[in-house]
Every structure is written in structure tokens, then in C-alpha cells.
């Protein structure tokens, strides 16, 4: 079957590639573009490990077909910060020892970044709900909430 052309912006760079019609956006990002930050934890939108930003909004990339991303702006965890220039959320997560096995972390950070972009002064409850679509099995969430709170407070100052 013919491959579909896909033009979009990924992490601020213009991308032109060919995708299969049945490929999910998650698969295309990981396998075609080598952006393996977003993970597949369930494939059905029930865990949040695949969370990316689509035109700034947090979405489950395992539930989109790659062809649906044409003309859109996508950001993955790779576009949030770099090891030598961490985003404040990333730095806060590191400081608080939030990542354990690390598998859920890219998705959590993307959800948290989207939350703070929309709501720079979230309440504790709003932070909890902001990442409630991201399952974590290692941490119990408390250190993440603390880190997000701290990053939000720092940004507010």
C-alpha cells in the first residue's frame, strides 16, 4: 500500500516524512523520527505514558494516527529541555528524586508542562488532576506533586 506523506512540526523543527496509514502517531514518532521519549504503556489511552503536546495540548499519541498530525505542531519530551539545559519542571523532578524506573516520566512531564502553560498557579488538587491521566507504579505520585508545585511557585516569582 502506498505510504502517506506527512508534514508537520516536531519540537520546533519542520518534518517531512512518509508514514503508513495504520501507524499511530506514537509509532511514527518513535520508529520513524527516533523520538523514543514517549512510551507505549497500554496503547489504549489508559496510562498516559505516550503523552505529547499537539498544538500545545496534552494528548494520548497512541490514540492518533500519524496521518492526523499533518500541519500540526507536536512537542515530545525531547523538545521540553536538554540534559544540559533542563526545563524547570525537569530540574525540579531531578532534585526531588521523582524518577524511579523512569518509564512514566516523559508522559508525566508533558502533562505537567501543559497544565502549567494553561494554569500557572494551580492548586494542589489541580496539580493532582493535571497528572491524573498518568499512571505511575513506582513513586506513588507524592514527589511529583511536590516537584510540580515547586516549579510552579518558582515560575510565579
Amino acid at each position, binding site marked *: 500500500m502506498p505510504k502517506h506523506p506527512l508534514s508537520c512540526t516536531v519540537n520546533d523543527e519542520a518534518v517531512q516524512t512518509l508514514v*503508513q496509514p*495504520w501507524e499511530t502517531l506514537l509509532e511514527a514518532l*518513535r*520508529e520513524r523520527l*527516533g*523520538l*523514543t*521519549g*514517549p*512510551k*507505549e*504503556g*497500554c*496503547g*489504549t489511552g*489508559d*496510562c498516559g*505514558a505516550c503523552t505529547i503536546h499537539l498544538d500545545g495540548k496534552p494528548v494520548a499519541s497512541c490514540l492518533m494516527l500519524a496521518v492526523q498530525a499533518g500541519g500540526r505542531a507536536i512537542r*515530545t*519530551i*525531547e523538545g*521540553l*529541555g*536538554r*540534559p544540559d539545559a*533542563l526545563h524547570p519542571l*525537569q530540574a525540579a*523532578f*531531578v*532534585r*526531588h*528524586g*521523582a*524518577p*524511579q*524506573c*523512569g*518509564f*512514566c*516520566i*516523559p508522559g508525566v*512531564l508533558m502533562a505537567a508542562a501543559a497544565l502549567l502553560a494553561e494554569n500557572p498557579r494551580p492548586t494542589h488538587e489541580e496539580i*493532582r*488532576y493535571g*497528572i*491524573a*491521566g*498518568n*499512571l*505511575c*507504579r*513506582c*513513586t*506513588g*505520585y*507524592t*514527589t*511529583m*506533586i*511536590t516537584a510540580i508545585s515547586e516549579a510552579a511557585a518558582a515560575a510565579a516569582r
Partner: protein
Amino acid sequence: MTMKTTRDVRGVGLAIPRPDGPEKVTGRVQYVADLQPRGLLHAKLLRSPHAHARIVRIDTSRARALAGVRAVLAAADIPELKRKAPTRAHAVLAIDRVVFAGQPVAAVAADELAIAEEALDLIEVVYEVLPAAVDPLQSMQPGAPPVADAGTEADIREALAHSAVAVAKTEAGPAKAVNISQQSRLHRGDAAQGFAQSDLVLEKTYRVPMVHQGYLEPHAVLAEWDRTGFLTLWASTQGSFNTRSEVADVLGLSENQIRVIPVECGGGFGGKIRALCEPITALLARATGRPVRYVMTRREELEAGMPAPQVIIRLRTGVKRDGTLMALEAETVLEAGAFSGTVLTVSAVFLASLYTWPAFDVRGVEVLTHKPSVAAYRAPVAPQTIFAIDSHMQQIARALGLDPVEFRRRHLIVEGDPMANGQPWQSNGAREVLDRIAEHPLWKSRAEWKASGADGRGVRGTGLALGGWLGGLQPTGATVRLNPDGTLSVLTGQVDIAGTNIALAQIAASAYGVDIEKVRITTGDTDTAPVTGLSAGSKTVYTVGAAVLQAAQDARGQTLEIAAAELEASIHDLEIVDGRVIVRGMPDRGITLAQIGKKGNLYMSKTPPVLGVSRPAFSQQAPAFAAQLARIEVDPETGEVTIHDFVIVQDVGRAINPLGVEGQMQGGAVQSLGMALTEALLYDGDGRLMNPSLLDYRKLTAADLPDLETIIVEKPSPSGPFGARGVGEPPIIPAPAAIANAIEDATGARITEAPLTPERIAMALLAASDGIVRP
């Protein structure tokens, strides 16, 4: 084993984040599914839809013909398969009978995952469906549909992997019925007489269903053979050496034909201790001559992983009116699924060993059913067992009008008391943990909390529970090397799942005498590392930490010897300060660690390199206890539970890294709460899983939980490195009992079946309000 350092270095006791934090928060850490070698093929497995069936015929010809398919395997294509699979790993593909729904019957490797999926549709399998044993209580009756191949012995590898209890001390009789695969009995004194003399006899049956370990990263493995017949496996595993041994056994290879490289593991919790997908992936790689990767889907994980067993405990106790314990009698049923392997005796021991029962009789059976076989899950069977015994102690105290903490404390074991299997309790902090949680303001103010629910929609209550884990043991080894720049390189084979690497680095730093920034830990694979046990059983810091400690001490000793010769001083007059070995009191007389390191590396040098080595084995366990307290509110009409506050108190012996320790306490607590409130693998009457997705297999979200409070207690273990005890397992234990106790406090309803769902709570309250009290 305490260690004096020459001065305070930055090492043990620091709350420092793991060094791989920046890589994890930027998504740069690679897991198996992220590896993309050239020529990669994708694997898919065809799985049985039936829980028990004879395989009449398998026809893979149409699948083989699909363009893009590179290999299709059925059992007939694999001569190495043993006719009777003694373990789950040996059942690579079903030969003539399937024994659980989800059991693999064929395997495909293809250019693309989508092609592999279509190929599965083209494989024709004709089954003759057989009656399935689905309920363990029925399965254990004579005449039940048989699960195991006749002659398959009880598998106690799991029990040994956790060094949970000395299996030899228990009495086991011959199996009565075909699906009873293990039996145990522990007894002491005359329980019947104890009951006869009791004023209050309480009997309840507690049940916790099968649950999944819930790691976010599904099982994944990449296999590739080289031209000499050497197999490399990149695996998401909790134990590379164990995986190597199992794969060698299953495929009939020698162990040094296999290299297992442990890739970053996205959670295991006991579910990735045993080999599962590695053999079939290796076989596909051999058949195609290409690297093959297999990643389980979430549906496959839930349907065909290796979950925790269902545990059913009928518990009967007798006490006197004044609270004197008289007798305990229990029957424990562990449902193992299709292959044996539960830690049966652990449950028996914990039931009768936590409190001092003068007479007890505890019988346990492991039962096989036509469901996926179980493996460990973080303190295997302890949460379920504590759910029973702690709920029971709480009910006794309530019935007698005694303070629930005081009642537990009064009867709690102390060091030296005999466990149910006769072995003496080692030093432990059970009492300290209990006392600490009882001091907590949330416990002290529980009456006010309860009263505050009088108006408004919710009823309020508080509950606590206490449990512990004995801690695993496994021989291991480590090396510590001094580099030419004065830094240390530590090599172990230990898969770093719980952040133990930073703790090991801290131990090495403190034991050798340098700051942690100078220490680098490398996790070797099976070719490069000293033999290493499982990252499980709460034993990593306890055993590997001890190994690193000894190796660091060895390296320190070698370093000082070299320095003593150079400085013409006695070794006893030397100390290591700020990267230099100096003569005490004469800081001008010294030599840097870098100089010593270089000396051992120079052409024609007579100075040997500093290489500390250790290879310890262990005989002493270091029990670790945890208590948890839940302050809750219950909507009595819907049964919904809101956890307002949750506290974890845990004895860790010595917190090598408090940040890491707290992370373990919080994570384990949430798994425990999941078991308490929402999680269950639900099977229909045909043995099929009804909830194979994360929509209906419910793990708790951030919105379901409050901030978790952690309180670290340190009662040093005489045998652990710097006094440390195992940390990973205790926090998963107490929550089901604590929540059940809190619900009883809030509503008056005692629920003995987990998960304590809103439906169970609401219906219990409805039944009670009818005036019809149902058990």
C-alpha cells in the same frame, strides 16, 4: 557491620537524587522497546482463547505465505521443547494441550508489527475444549479437571528466590488431589484445648484476588545470535543471571553461550524475575538469522503475565476475655495458576509468627488452576496474610473493648521469640514502628476525626496495620577499582530498579573514604559482572551493599598498603582525607589517590593495581517492619472512599539514601492501596480474563490519593551494611488491613474480601441497615 571512616565523607545517609535523573526526565534513557538495530524483526505470539483444551491441529502455512513474514513457529518446529514443561518458562509454545487462556501456541516474526498481527489471523488452530478448573476451592477437590502434567513436581524456586522461610522445617504430606501441588503444616501446642479454654472465638475468611504487579513497561526482549551460535539477549529483567540460567535450561544451551544484558527496566516488582518471553524470542531470532524484538501488549500482560496468586485464608482464633491469646487455627489456599511456584510457607509463618500464640495449627495448600501461573509480587503473599491476621487482631481488640495498638503491642514478638517454623526472630524494629505510628497526631485524634463526620455526607474513620518482611538472601559479588585519577569504579551485576545504585555508591564512598562524587557504579551484564542475584526480595542493599562494602574495604586496605610502602609509615598511622592518603597528624607527608592509581597502571611498574573484590554469601536475614495509617471518609450511599491522609512508618535499619528510601515507601504504599481498594484480575467461569485493559484493571491515579507521609525509623540490623535492612517490600504489606480497619471504624462494616470496592462497602451497609447481617 559498621564501618569507621577516617572522617565524614559524603556517602551513607545523604538524601541525594539518582545520577540518571537528567536522562530520565529528558526521555533519553533507553528501554528495550527503544532499541532499533538494523534488520530488526517484530514478534507476535498467537495465544489460546481457551483455558483448557487439547490442540488437535495447527496449520501455519497461510501465515508463512504472507509477504513480510520471516518465520512462523509452532511446537512441532522446536525439537528442544520438553514434553512435560516443569516450569512456565519451559512451556515456550503449547505442545498438545493448553492450560490457561493466553498460553502461547505459535509465534511469528515479521518485517512490521502490523504484518505479524495479520499473520496471527492466518494461523489455524483446532482445539478440543476441555473442562477447566477455575475456582481454586473446586480445583483442589478430587476429580477436578487436571492442570499439571502428571509427575511435575512442586516448584519451590520462587520461595528460595525470596529466601523467605526455611522450607525444610515444615511438614508436607502427599498431595491428596491432583491439583494440589504443595502442602504445608505448621503447628505447636494443643490448639483444640486452647480453643476450648477461650472466651471469644472469631472465625473469618479473608480473600484477596489475583493482582498484576502493574509495572508500566510491559515485558520486552531483543534477541540476536551471532555466527558462532552465541546468543545475546537485551532484556527488561530483574535478574540477568537468573534469566540466563533459565533460558539455557529451556533451550538446552550452556550458560556461556548466552549473554544477558539488562536494559533499563521500567518496573518489575517480582513480575520480571523469571524468564517469560526470552526463549521464544531467541528461537525466532535463530530461525530468521535476524535480531527479533518482542514487546508484550498491555492486554497480553494482564492476560498472560505472571501475576500474584489469589489468597484465601480461613482464620480462627481463640482468646480470653482479658485479651490473652489462646489458639490460632488457619487454612491457607494459594492459587498458583497453571504452574506451581508460590511461596506457600511464608503465609503460614506470618499468620502464626507475628504475635505470640501459645498454640497454633496452620495448614496451607497451593492449588493449580487453568489460569496464568503466578510469580512474586513485592513481599509475596505478605499483604494478603497481614490483611487476615491484622484485621483479625483489630476485630478482637474491638470486641473486647481493648485499645487496638496496645493489644498488638502486648502480644507482638520480640527478638529471640520462635517463629512458627521454629527459627528465632532476628533483631527487628516491629515494636518501634508500632510505637511510632501510635504517637502520630492522626492516630491520637482519631476520635475527633470520627465525630467530625456526623454532619455532612461522609462518615469518617481511621485505621492502622502492622506488617513485616523477613528479607531475602542471595550470594553475590562486587569489585571496586581505583582509577588513575583517584576515582573509584564499582562493578556489580545488580539491575538497578529501586535506585539502589546510588545507595551502593554511597556505601562504597563511605567504606573506602571518598566523597560520592568520586564513585561511579557500573551495572555489568552476565559476561562482565560478578555473579549477582535478583533485584528483588528487598535484598539488594542488604546483600550487594554488603558485597560493595567488603570490596571497598578490601580496596581501601590495598590502597593503604601501597601508601604505607611509599610513605615508609605504618598502615595504622594512615588515613584518607580529601583524596590523599596522609600520615595522621602530618598532612605534609602524603600521597594522592591518583598517584596510587597511576602507579598500579604504569608500564614496568612494580605496584599492583588496586582491585577490591568480594564474594559473600549470607545466612542471616534482617526483618523489616512497616506500619501504615489511613484517615478516610466514606460516602455511605455510594461506598466511595476518600483517603484524606496516609502515613507510612518503616524501620529501614539505616537509611543509606533517605530520598531513595522514601520513594520506596511511597511507591509500595500505593501498590498496597491498589490491592486494598481497586485492583483485581477478574475471570469468568471459562477461565477467561474479563478485564484485560487498564480501564478495567484499575490502578490508582494521582487524583485518588493524598500526599503520602513517610516516617523513617532506624533500628540498625547487626548484619546489614551500616545497619541497613531491606526497604522495598515492607511498604506494600499493611494497607489492605489498614483500610479495612478504617472502613470498620467509619461505618461499622467489616469487609474481609479485597478489593474493598465502593460496591462491597455500599452493599455491606445496605445489608446492615436492612437488619440482615450478612458475613
